[in-house]
């Protein structure tokens, strides 16, 4: 459950930064997985929380599941962020891709 929390925090921080899904959803996920991570650590230390720490993150997973099936990833963010990354590192990335491809 600790690793579920860590994985969820990585994913939601990326969702927040890239706006692949609306930021409100990303914030909900960040809060949900932070609670999950904190609760899981408390359980390791011996506190019995009866799994209530999993509820916000679990509801988020249900909601994001429906959202991704219905709406998919947002486009508005994907396009602008793509050129900025490749334009900041124009020299490094193309040779790497080129040399790795064959």
């Amino acid at each position, binding site marked *: 459950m600790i690793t579920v929390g860590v994985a969820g925090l990585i*994913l939601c921080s*990326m969702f927040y930064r890239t706006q692949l899904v609306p930021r409100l959803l990303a914030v909900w996920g960040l809060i949900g997985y932070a609670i999950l991570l904190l609760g*899981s650590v408390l359980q390791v230390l011996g506190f019995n929380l009866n799994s209530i720490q999993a509820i916000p993150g*679990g509801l988020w997973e*249900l909601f994001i*599941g429906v959202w991704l*099936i219905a709406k*998919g990833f947002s486009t508005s963010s994907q396009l602008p962020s*793509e050129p900025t990354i490749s334009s900041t590192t124009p020299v490094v990335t193309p040779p790497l891709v080129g040399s790795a491809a064959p």
Partner: protein
Amino acid sequence: MQNQSATLPDRFSPKPFRTTARIVGVLYLAGMVVGIGGNVLIQSILGGPDHLSTIAANSMLLALGAVLWLSTVAGDAAHGILMFPVLKPHSERAAVGYLGARIIDATFIAVMALLILVQIPIGIEYLNAGSSDTSYIQALSAVLTRQIFTPTSSP
């Protein structure tokens, strides 16, 4: 090479990674249903009083619950694999980190499924054991499942 040429148009299309998004969405919902289903099944057998004497008779149901958990192992790993090309153009570190965290998470669930399956031979030994040995076997069973049920949570 083929992957890259296949995902590049998808990435820049009006709906980037549309199929990936759908599959990830289904995985979230399916993972929830299968995980909770397995949990209910396992809890119904191991949660009862004196469960050790009934495990041998219900071993198929318990194994089915473990198989459901094992299928969430595949689903959790698939999350990391499917999101990798989506996250990579934004941050390769985050993409690798997410993949790694998902694989570790899947491995932990696999270990919990193993602890469930180990209850079946323990239950058989319990039925075969003499009365002097039953308390040891009960303690062994309790120690192995405590990490999953009593103070700690489901996957």
